[in-house]
Each structure stands twice: as C-alpha cells, then as structure tokens.
C-alpha cells in the first residue's frame, strides 16, 4: 500500500468543491430560457377526480402552461411501473395497478400529482397552482396494511382484489412445521418495523429541456442511477428513444435509496418542456419530499422460532404484511421479498425456515428500498428474536448467539443465500471487548444508585450486498441485470480518466476509485479523474444502491485495468526490447524486473498515441472497457452493542455507548468506510428512537416537516467506537463486501434490545420515544 493506494486513509478529492460552495446540484443548474414548475397535488388520500378547471390559473401572471394527465395520456406518455416481477405462491403474477404520472380519474394518496403549472418564477407557479380548481369526490381511505385486507376496506386499484398485490412464500413449510413438532421451546413475537422517510438533505429535483431543433431531450435529475432512469423513461414511459434522451445526475445530495426510482416529476418536466417550448425546472419543497419520496420499511410481522432443549435453533416461521403504499414503485416488490426473506437465517445455522409475505396497497406514499432495504427488517426480526429468546431461557444473549452461529463456509441457508465467508464469533468477541461487557453489571449497579435504568443490547447482523449476479436476479424476477461497467482512458500524457456506471452521492468514489487506479498503475492520485453521472459520457451502467459500488463497480474497473495493464506492458516491452512477462509497474514507470531498464508511465502512454513504434498489428491508443457481472452476492456482517441509560421519570433514552465491529472484507479507504458506518448507525438509531412516518386514519401525513418528523440531531447520538475484522469476499477480485448499509441494518435491534433490557419489558415499538418508554416502564410495574 502506498500513501495514496488501496488501504490508505486519503482525504477526499471531491471535498474542495463542497467546502467552498462550488458543488453543482440540480437546483444550481440554470439553462437559458428556463422556467419553473409547481405540481398541484391531491389533498385527499383517496378520491375520484370529478373536474379539473385550469382557466383561472392559466390567466395568472407569468404562467406559461397548466397541463393535466389527460393531455399527458393523449401524448402517449406511459404509466409508471415496478420493474421486478413477483409471483404469488399460487403462481399468479403480482397485481400491479396503474400509476399515471399525473392522476386522471382518481387520486390514491395525499401528494399524488394531478396538474403541473409552469411559470416564469417559482413564486408565480406556486400562486397559479393555488388557482387550479379540482373537484374531488372523497372516498374512504386505508393507511394501515394490517387493516387494508379486511372485509369492507376501501378498494384502491381494480387490479388488486382486497388490496393484495402478492401472497409470496419462501423456504419449506413442511420441513419447518416438522421442526416445530420436535421443539422443546417455541418463542413467539409480533414485530412492527416502523415506516421511515429517507430524507436526503437535498430535496428531489428535475430540469427537463427539450431541444426542438435536435428533437432531443436533456434531463438533469437527482438520481442514484441516471442510466437506469434513461432506460426506463425510454423503454417504458415513451418519453424519447435512448439516443434522443440524455440524463445527467450531477452532484447529488444524498440518496439512501430514495433517488433510485424514476418518479412522475422528472418525466412530466421533460414532457412539459416539449409541450411549453421552454426548459422546465422543478425542485421539491421539504414537505413535498415527505409526501412523495418513496418511504421505507412499514412491515407487520408475526414470527415463531423453535429451539431444542439445548437452545439450538430448529426452525423459523415468519408471516409479514408489507405496506407498499398507493402505487408500486420501481423496485418495491423486491424489497420485502428477495432483499428481506433471504436474510432470515441471520448469522445462524437454522435447518428449516418458512416465510410468507403479503404485499398490500394502502392510501399512503409508495414504499420502496431505503438504506438497507428489507435487510434491516430481517435483522430487526432475527435479532429481537434472539435477544428475547435468551431472556426467556435465562441465558446470555451473546452465548445463545454463539451457540447457533454458522461456523463453516460456504453455508447454504434454507432461503436461497449461500454465505461464502465470515467469522461471526470474532466480531462478537471484538465488540464485547470494546464495549467492556465484563464491566457492564457494575455500571448498571451504579446507574441504579443514581436512579437510572441501564441496559445493553446486542445485534449480530448479516446482509447481502454486491447486488447482484444478473442471471440469478433475472431468474427471481428482476427486469434488469445488475452488473456494472467501467472504461479506463489513459491519455497521451499519461493522465487517466475512469468512466464508471456507479454514481457517487456522498460515497467518495472520486477518491476511492482513484486510489484503486493509483495502486494498480503506480501513478499519482491527482492524475486520475473519475467521471460519472452522465449518460452522454459514460456507457450504460446500473448505478449505486445495495452497497454495490465497491464490490461491483470497482470490480468492473479492475477488469478494465487488467486490459490496460496488459497493453501497457506490451508497449513497454516493445520499447525496451524485453519480454512482456518481465515487465513490472513501479514508481511511475514500467520496468524490466531485476534491471535498471524502464520506461516512464507517461512515455509509454505517449508511445501508445504517437503510434510511431508499436508492436506489429497493435491498435493505437490506450483505452479499455469492461463489464463485470458478480459471481455471488457479498455478505457483510458484524456485531453491534448498544448501551443505554434511561431516566425512568421522563422515559428519556441516553445512548451512552455504541460499539460496531464489522466485517466488510477488504477496505480501500478506512476513513470513508468509517464515515459510512457513522451515518448508517445514526439512521438506525433514528429509526429506533426518533423517526416514524405517521398517517392519521384519513390518510393525512402527520409527520411532513422537520417540525414533526424527528431527524437525528448531533445531540441525539454519541461518538461511536468502530473496528473491523475482515474476511475477504471470495466472490470478487478485490475481496470487497460493501459497507454502505450495515449501520442502518445492524443498529435498530441493538438499540431496542438495550432499551428493553433496561426497562424489563419487551412491550415496546419503534420509535421508542420518551413517551413510549415512560409508558412501557409504567405498564411493566403494574
């Protein structure tokens, strides 16, 4: 490892523009003639649209266009789709209802877009939007997935009877039932995984520009995957053929999953630009973001775990109701199925598992992947189950886990996944030592003397990342392949551009990807630029989500580097009249191993482009492309320990320490990996004690601003104690597993296990607010 290469704690190349205010986000983009859009949205959770009157709005100052769904349909713009087919256990395909980008006959959640208004200024567009008169006939609404299938519940889409989208099974029901028959102990739980709003700090935005002369569209959008956006808008929404549509995702201010999807606004802005003849920009207000960004989680689950007399797990039975909201978002069907139930084995050797998942429409915002996406729901269920079981058996939660850990790899679980590497006991030991587990009882006693309740909770999470082998996900219903692409361009003076289909919106790819190249080609970090986020610059790519950019995106770069290195060595060998097998790359030069003979890197590059003296038959230039399709998922895992102190008089939880011991495989830049864990854990703590999206019975979102939805602030969380003990992934050339989502997956059960340990009752739901904790303490006393 050099000071700039793989494994080095290099500060980020991209930072300078962000700390000096020179970042360029979508809202910062200005194009000549640009105008501003506001969407008129449904104030009702469920209603028929009787009449839309736009005349008054059209007459308002500065208004250029007021457009409705009928006009959009007339122009052939398609409905939004979910791109992952799930079949119910009876073999029938999922029941997807129509999602028109602008509602035509019916609205199905508060925030459903109905009309777009384009005006000279945003303020004028806002004024005119208020002048649009829409007559609704209100219908009864249902927001709670556990009630949406009840007899007499309102029917949201005609395609989905009883609001049931699919009724899906995984695992083996008979084997699981047989395991329960043999059980000495059965532990039962009902668990709610609370609905969250992702809340990237940059609100979603889109700027659509139709160039009439070229018959060409450009879309600047807050996207984690601009190429997927172009593909979907071309192939399914009929905006324009791919060669007539350029999608640019410039600096993007956080995503956390919510910016994977193609929403109504970007394609309506593109269409409205053609319709009005001006570039159209829309930027969400924060309240619009709360109402319309895809939400996360929202599961109701009943689970039972069977143990033998020695507390070895025999079987696991799970029934989950997943709330998908009013429409099926782009990957919404995959989240509560293949990203959730395939992880129900946790870190444990469980011989038999059976899970049933019912996906249900409600009159709420669409629900899709949010940091972790299904895996936090699985980890919360499994890790609450382990802790509660240990308490019921009167054994140590750490030892119950240790007894049931998977110890040999590869390990085939009963739910598809084949774990290829890991060392769960080492992570547990590391975390217990870092948390001073041995000293905990003394600390608990001291807290008790001070009138406080102290508790400790464990979480031994596992996740599946490096998403994903294309053929495997294709066989499970994915509409796309999940490979990644890379192009490495060595310029004539030896500087390098790497074009990647991964997208960086906080992850630091401009640094870590460059570190990989610097290590491999022995060139300075400053001579390497990473290019991403523009479909005109970068060939097809699949984007950033599911902790995939290291494991998949960088593996594609490795493949391209292999080709570059091979050609560079051939050129150098030719120039030095040496055997290419003897060429090594060191200190900025290609050398003949064991001699003084060398060609500086830049000289070799120049030779590639002057082409005066290349090996016979070699093409000039030095630029190579690769596509990498992963061999398997990767399996980051670890142990988190949370210690809390609670004031029984107020219910206030103070997180006094949080320890994370992770196994991420090989690491490119420890500083960036730690930053990912800090952020993920904080979102996990947010889910556990602060955050919750709450709808009232009529379908109004009660938590639609930062006044109402509790975001973690600096004072809510501690400084963290992190460590890693890494087993390299055998499934990709770099041995990387991924680190982006671990914190959000592992943290919630650790926190809730700690709080329930402190207060002595399991009767607590997330977010464990002071009010709920106080009430739980009171109810436990009586």
């Amino acid at each position, binding site marked *: 490892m050099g000071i700039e290469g793989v494994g080095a704690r290099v500060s980020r190349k991209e930072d300078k523009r962000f700390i*000096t205010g020179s970042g360029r*986000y979508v809202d*910062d983009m200005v194009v000549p003639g640009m105008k501003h859009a506001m969407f008129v949205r449904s104030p009702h959770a469920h209603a028929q649209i009787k009449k839309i009157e736009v005349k008054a709005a059209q007459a308002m100052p500065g208004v250029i266009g007021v457009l409705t769904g009928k006009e959009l349909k007339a122009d052939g713009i398609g409905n939004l789709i979910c791109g992952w087919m799930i079949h119910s256990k009876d073999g029938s395909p999922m029941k997807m209802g129509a999602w028109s980008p602008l509602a035509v006959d019916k609205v199905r959640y508060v925030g459903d877009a109905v009309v777009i208004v384009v005006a000279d200024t945003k303020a004028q567009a806002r004024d005119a939007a208020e002048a649009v008169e829409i007559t609704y006939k209100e219908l009864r609404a249902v927001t709670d997935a556990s009630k949406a299938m009840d007899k007499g519940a309102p029917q949201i889409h005609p395609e989905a009877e009883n609001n049931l989208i699919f009724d899906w099974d995984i695992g083996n029901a008979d084997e699981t039932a047989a395991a329960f028959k043999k059980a000495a102990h059965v532990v039962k739980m009902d668990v709610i995984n609370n609905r969250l709003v992702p809340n990237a700090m940059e609100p979603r935005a889109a700027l659509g520009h139709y160039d009439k002369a070229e018959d060409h569209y450009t879309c600047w959008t807050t996207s984690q995957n601009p190429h997927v956006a172009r593909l979907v808008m071309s192939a399914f929404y009929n905006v324009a053929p791919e060669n007539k549509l350029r999608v640019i995702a410039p600096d993007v201010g*956080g995503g956390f999953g919510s910016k994977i999807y193609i929403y109504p606004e970007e394609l309506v802005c593109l269409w409205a630009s053609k319709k009005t003849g001006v570039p159209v920009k829309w930027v969400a207000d924060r309240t619009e973001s709360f109402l319309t960004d895809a939400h996360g989680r929202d599961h109701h689950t009943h689970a039972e775990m069977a143990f033998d007399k020695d507390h070895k797990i025999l079987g696991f039975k799970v029934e989950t109701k997943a709330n998908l909201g009013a429409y099926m978002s782009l990957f919404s069907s995959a989240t509560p199925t293949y990203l959730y139930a395939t992880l129900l084995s946790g870190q444990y050797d469980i011989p038999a598992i059976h899970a049933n998942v019912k996906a249900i429409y409600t009159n709420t915002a669409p629900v899709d992947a949010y940091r972790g996406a299904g895996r936090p729901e699985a980890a919360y269920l499994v890790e609450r189950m382990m802790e509660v079981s240990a308490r019921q058996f009167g054994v140590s939660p750490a030892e119950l886990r240790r007894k049931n850990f998977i110890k040999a790899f590869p390990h085939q679980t009963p739910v598809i996944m084949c774990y290829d590497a890991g060392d769960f006991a080492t992570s547990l030991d590391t975390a217990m030592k870092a948390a001073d587990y041995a000293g905990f009882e003394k600390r608990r006693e001291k807290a008790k003397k001070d009138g406080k309740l102290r508790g400790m909770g464990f979480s031994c999470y596992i996740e599946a990342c490096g998403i994903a082998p294309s053929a495997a996900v294709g066989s499970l219903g994915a509409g796309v392949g999940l490979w990644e692409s890379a192009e490495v361009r060595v310029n004539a003076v030896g500087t390098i551009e790497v074009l990647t289909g991964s997208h960086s919106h906080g992850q630091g790819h401009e640094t870590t990807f460059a570190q990989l190249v610097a290590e491999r080609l022995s060139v300075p970090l400053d001579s390497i630029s990473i290019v991403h986020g523009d479909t005109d610059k970068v060939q097809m790519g699949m984007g950033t989500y599911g902790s995939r950019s290291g494991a998949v995106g960088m593996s594609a770069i490795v493949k391209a580097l292999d080709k570059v290195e091979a050609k560079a060595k051939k050129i150098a060998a030719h120039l030095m009249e040496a055997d290419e097998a003897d060429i090594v790359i060191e200190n900025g030069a290609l050398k003949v191993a064991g001699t003084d003979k060398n060609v500086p890197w830049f000289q070799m590059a120049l030779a590639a482009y002057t082409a005066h003296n290349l090996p016979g038959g070699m093409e000039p230039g030095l630029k190579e492309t690769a596509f990498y399709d992963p061999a398997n998922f990767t399996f980051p895992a670890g142990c988190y320990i949370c210690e809390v102190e609670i004031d029984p008089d107020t219910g206030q939880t103070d997180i006094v320490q949080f320890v994370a011991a992770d196994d991420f495989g090989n690491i490119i830049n420890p500083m960036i990996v*730690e930053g990912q864990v800090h952020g993920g854990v904080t979102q996990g703590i947010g889910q556990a004690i602060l955050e919750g999206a709450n709808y009232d019975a009529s379908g109004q979102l009660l938590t639609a601003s930062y006044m109402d939805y509790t975001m973690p602030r600096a004072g809510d969380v501690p400084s963290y104690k992190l460590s890693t003990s890494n087993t390299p992934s055998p499934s990709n050339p770099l041995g990387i597993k991924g680190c982006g989502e671990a914190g959000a997956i592992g943290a919630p059960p650790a926190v809730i296990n700690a709080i329930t340990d402190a207060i002595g009752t399991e009767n607590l739901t997330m977010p464990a607010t002071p009010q709920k904790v106080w009430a739980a303490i009171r109810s436990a006393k009586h």
Partner: protein
Amino acid sequence: MSEVSLTVNGRRVSASVEDRTLLVHFLREHIGLTGTHVGCDTSQCGACVVHVDGKAMKSCSMLAAQASGSDVVTIEGLTDGGDLHPVQAAFKEHHGLQCGFCTPGMIMTTVDMIARHPEGLDEATVRAELEGNICRCTGYHNIVKAVLAASKTMSKVSKGKTKKAA
C-alpha cells in the same frame, strides 16, 4: 417590489426584488451564489446558514429586504480566494462531509460557534450548538471532530497573534 442594497462577500449589490423574496433566494437566484442551500421549508435544517453582520443566520428566515444595508458573508466568501479557512480545512481533514449538501451551512455555523467560544469547545457543547443543522450522511461523528479540531487550530492562531501583538 423592494429595493435592496447590501454587501455580499465584500461586494456591493443592489436589486429590485419581490417583497416576499427571502435572503436565501436573493443569494441563489439573483446574484448566483448557489453554495448556500435550501434543505427544508421550516427553518430547521440549517443548509442555508450565512453570516449577516458577523452573526450566523438562517437565510431562509429573513427577507432580502430585511438584510438591506447589511454585510453578508456566504460560504463562497469565507476566504478571499486564498487558502481554505481553518474550518473548511478541518472538515476535509476529518471527513466531516459526504454528499456536501449540508456542508456550507455546517461550516458557516461552525465559524460562528468558534468565534462565540474563544475559551474553546468540548464535545457536548458542539453537539448542542449543532442543534439547528441537520446532516443525514455523517452521523455527526466526524463533524464534531472537525469542529473541535478547528477550534483548537484557531485558538492557537489567535494566541499566536496576541503574543505577536504583545
């Protein structure tokens, strides 16, 4: 319409704006300083913090007209084109930013916080003082480290200056 005239990053600017124009919109849309960001509509997130007459201010919480006659400094004007400000340097060194969207507001808040605490800062004070700035990426861990480090650097610098003066 309101006539506003103010100093922004040392430059005099005058414009005629709609009465309802917020300072943040004036900065972003009228004079093209897009480093100041809008992350919410309830004055909670702090992405729009600038300095007005030397004090940290959420620029979404005042009208451009109210700022008329004031001296405003934005993230673009924190240094006069030279080296990074010690707070900017500390955020970079300690990885106190990821997506960068909250960063300008965080840095402007931090500069003000350090100025108000010449005696130095501790972790609890920093965390309490950051109440009005939300970050979704970093979990605050490295922001807190950066603020404490910058506070130390700046107190050394100012002590050095005092000694020289003496």
